Structure formats: C-alpha cells, structure tokens
C-alpha cells in the first residue's frame, strides 16, 4: 500500500521534469533548428526563387521545377545516378552477404573484422585517389598487370567504364561495413532454427535461401534503405576523380547540384534539383520498406 503511494507521489513529482528537460535539450534543439529545420525550410523556399547570392531571391513559382523537368542534364543525372546505385548496391549487397555468412560460420576473429573495416574508416577522397592511382591508364598497377598478360590496357575512367569503376571503388570501401551490419543480423537468428533444418536434412544452400535469408529480411531492409539512400547521394569519389566527366557520364545529382550552385550561382535552381532528389529518395525508401516488409519480423510468428 505504502509502496503504491510512494510510486504515485513519485509520478506526480516527475511531471515537473519539464524544466530540466528544456535545459538539457536546449543546445541540441537550437542546433536542430538552426542547421536542419530552418535550412530545410529555406531550401524549399529557395527552390521557388531565382537566387544568385548577390541579389535578393526573386519568387518565380514553379519555374525551376518546370525547367528541371525539361533539363537534359537532370534526366542524365537520374540515369547515371541510377546506374551507379544499381551497380554499387547490387555488388555490395551480394558480396557483403557472402562475407557476413563466411565470418558468421568460419571465424570469430576480431582482427579479420577490423582489417575488413579499415577502408570504411578512410576518407572517400583518399580511397578515390588510391584507386585512381591503381587504375591509372599509363602507370597504374592494374593496367601493368593487364599488360603483363598481354591484354589491351583498360581506360578505367573512360566513357563506358567510369561509372562502373567508381561504383566498384565504393563497393570496396563499404564492403566490410555492410558485412558487419549483416553479421549482426545473422547473430540474432536463434540457433535452434538451424538445428531444426538440419534434422529435416536441409542442405547448406537450401538452409541459406530457405531460412537465413527470409529471417534476415528485416535487417536487410534496414541496411538497404541505409545504403541505397547513401548511394543516391554519391559525391566525393566523383569529385576527386572524374568530376562528372568524361562528357556527362558521371554527372550525378550531387555533382550537378553543386555545379549549379557554386559554378553558375543558380542557388534557386540547385535547390529545386536537390528537392527532386529528396522526393526520389523518400519514394525509394517507402517502396523498399513496402516490398521488403521491413518492419515485420518472421521470427515473432
């Protein structure tokens, strides 16, 4: 009885946490408002204006969006960005899945996990430069190897090759990271599920496709939303290597947006393109969650 009363008293008292809560979150709320919410609203506003930084923004309604939808470079950006995402996410997910299963089944070595994670800790720019050097047409190690076995040297940053090359460079950087996230998912699958499969005589491959993959689905959905939205924003690797070329084959959304803003001072137009990119990202994320039913788990059934 007295315990209940004490709890009740406590609950009443804890309502007054409003004051300390305000104090504790004040800096973070300030940061969120100044650097996320206000700029977000401003970005939306700017997308309806013509703004070159030197004069006040001029409201022009939907003109920027109309222009964007007729701009061949925007459609090109959509096309090459999709190319990048498809190659990058495709290979990364498959390789990371293989790597995660291998680590799960065959090694507990933290050293191996650490080594595989190192590329992720190194800046995008450095990773891009190192591969730019390894894949150099004249002096690069890879082309020297190709030469050694008497094949034609490969222009890795040419018109047909630049995008796949850049996509694979980032597969290299993110592989260990993605594999670790998947590994964490694998470790949540209870052992007895596998034991049951063994009793039923299911093979290794059947176990993987019949049990592991379906049970991993919520984790994979989470990881895919995370990696796909990141992938759509590809910028650094391209900025440090091809800068959008040759011609326009690597001129992705992020490259196009920064060029429109900082090279030709069209901040209004650049904002409109970035909002189009955000709408695409939101749509893709929703579709992914729906398709993969990411918020339901088969384990609870």
């Amino acid at each position, binding site marked *: 009885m007295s315990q209940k009363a004490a709890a009740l008293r406590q609950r009443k008292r804890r309502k007054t946490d409003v004051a300390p809560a305000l104090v504790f979150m004040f800096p973070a709320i300030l940061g969120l408002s100044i650097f996320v919410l206000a700029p977000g609203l401003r970005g939306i506003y700017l997308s309806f204006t013509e703004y070159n930084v030197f004069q006040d923004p001029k409201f022009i309604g939907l003109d920027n969006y109309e222009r964007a939808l007729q701009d061949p470079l925007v459609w090109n950006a959509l096309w090459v960005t999709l190319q990048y995402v498809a190659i990058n996410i495709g290979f990364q997910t498959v390789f990371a899945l293989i790597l995660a299963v*291998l680590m799960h089944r065959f090694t507990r070595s933290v050293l191996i996990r650490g080594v595989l994670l190192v590329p992720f800790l190194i800046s995008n720019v450095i990773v891009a430069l190192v591969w730019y050097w390894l894949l150099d047409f004249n002096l690069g190690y890879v082309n020297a190897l190709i030469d050694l076995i008497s094949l034609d040297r490969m222009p890795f940053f040419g018109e047909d090759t630049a995008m796949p090359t850049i996509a694979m460079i980032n597969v290299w950087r993110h592989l260990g990271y993605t594999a670790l996230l998947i590994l964490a998912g694998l470790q949540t699958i209870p052992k007895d599920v596998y034991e049951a499969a063994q009793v039923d*005589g299911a093979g290794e491959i059947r176990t993987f496709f019949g049990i592991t993959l379906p049970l991993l689905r919520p984790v994979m959905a989470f990881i895919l939303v995370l990696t796909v939205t990141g992938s759509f924003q590809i910028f650094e690797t391209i*900025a440090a290597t091809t800068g959008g070329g040759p011609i326009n084959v690597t001129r992705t959304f992020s490259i196009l*947006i920064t060029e429109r803003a900082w090279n030709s001072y069209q901040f209004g137009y650049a904002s409109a393109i970035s909002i189009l990119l955000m709408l695409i990202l939101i749509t893709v994320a929703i579709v992914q969650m729906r398709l993969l039913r990411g918020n339901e788990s088969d384990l609870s059934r």
Partner: protein
Amino acid sequence: MTILNRRGASTEARDELQSTSKSARAVAYVALTIFVLLTIFPLWFMIRTALSTTRSLPSDPLSLVPVDFTLGALNRVLGLASSAEAIAEGGSGQSLNFFQYFANSAISTTGATISQVFFSAAAAYAFGVLRWPGRDAIFFVFLFAMTVPGIFLVLPNYLLARELGLLNTLAGVMLPHMLMAPFAVFFLRQVFLGTNMSIVEAAIIDGANHVRIFFQIVLPLARAQVMTVFILQYIGIWNDYLWPFYIGAGAEESKTLTVALGVFRSQTPQGSPDWAGLMAGSLIAALPMLLLMILFGRKIVSSIQNSGLKG
C-alpha cells in the same frame, strides 16, 4: 556449390553447426583470404607509392615494394623539402602546408566532436531519463532529421555561414556539427533508456539535482557507449569533404586535410601527376584513422556491428 549440395544431402548427422566438411571449410578460408587480401592490397600500395620516387615509378609499376625508396615524398607534402628537391623527385614544387591542414583537421574535428557528443548526450538525457509530456514527439523530429539528405542542407547552410561571415573560417567548418548530431542523440537515448532508474530515484531522494545525476551517475555508467559514439562521429567528421570543401577551401587557415588533398591533386601537373606525393599526402591523412583502428579496433568493430540494430 556441388560440393556443398552433396554434403548437405547426405544424412550424416551433424552434432554442431560449425562441423562442416573439410572441402567447404577450405573454400570458405580461401574466399575469406581473398577478401582480406583485396582489402589490404590497395592500402599497402598507397604506402609503397608514398615511399617511392615519383620519377622512378614508371620503371617498375608492378613492384610490391617502394621503387627507389625515399622519404622525399613525405617530406615534400609536409613542406620539409625545398622546391628544387621537390621538382627533382617529380613533385610540383608547390609549397604545401600539410602541418597547417593537419592542425586544422585535428582542431576542428576534436572540438566539434567533443562539443557535439556532450550536447547530444544532454539531449539524450532529456529524452531517455527525464519524463515530460511531448518528449516522444520532439524526439521524432530528431529521428526525422536523421533522414534528411546532406546535399539538401549544404546549400542553405552555406548561405547561412556566408551571411554570418563564417566562410573560410575554421568556426564555419565546425559550427553545424557542434550542437548535436541526430544519430548521436538517437544512439545515446537508446543507451540512457537502459539506465537503472532506481539509482536515479535514490539520488533524487538524496537531494541530487539532474545536473549532478547526469554528470555523476548517468554519464559514467554509459562511459563505454559515449566513447563509442565519440569514435564513430570523430571518424565521420574527420573524413567529411562536401561541407569543409565549400565552406573552407578558400583559405589556408580553414582548409582541412581531405580538402587540401583534393586541391593538391588538381595542382599536380596534368598527365604526369606527382603520384608519390599524392599517396604520401593520402597516407598522412589516413594515419590518424589507422591509428584509431589499431588502438580501438575491437571497440570500433563491436560498435559498428551494434550501431544499426540497437534501435
């Protein structure tokens, strides 16, 4: 694949999951080794090139050890070599100020991360320990902020920094990071939700206020996780490029290492870049992260492994 199938089809009972056939094991270890080698090789090649002489690189592109070993490239990017020496070894003769860039990166990253993690932890305390109406709604706004693409915020934030006169200052580079990171708030809230509330209640009964409880109970209890967030955010801010490039590339005192490297590449002679110098610069910029990995490898691995699934 056939090996795996055949083995799986056999009715031979396995008492433990790990007891796999020798051939499958061999295949797995070969595959793991390939993954590890493919990961290590480019990093080794960066080191190998950084210790080579640029002019001698064409003579032996397949060499796995430095060609014509020299510390010249490292000296060059650190600004320790004279212009004549630099040109003799195939550098651009440009004087580089890597110490300054290194200091810029170190100061801005350390300052921004300490401040960010501290204020994020304070906010997480309000969301995870304190009880007040509307706290889930406001926390949701932070969750939402986590999903806003960076490229969308760079434009208006650049304009803001410009209006505040923070272009080409280290303060401008640091500022957006300093008050919070949605991820840090989210992660630490999860941690603080697990705080043993009876300790907090006891402290309140003893007359402790929330500032004391935060500093003397909740933070020390979550020391390991706070460190985890610190390391993750430190890595992210150190490697950041888009923001410091547009905000700070224009002045020596605000150029960070990653930005300087990007610029260094465009300065090197077209056609025959100073590869040894470029790789030496990359090595120096990567070194702090490699050092972090050597010192806190176990922690970094486990924190990344757990970062996604705690939520």
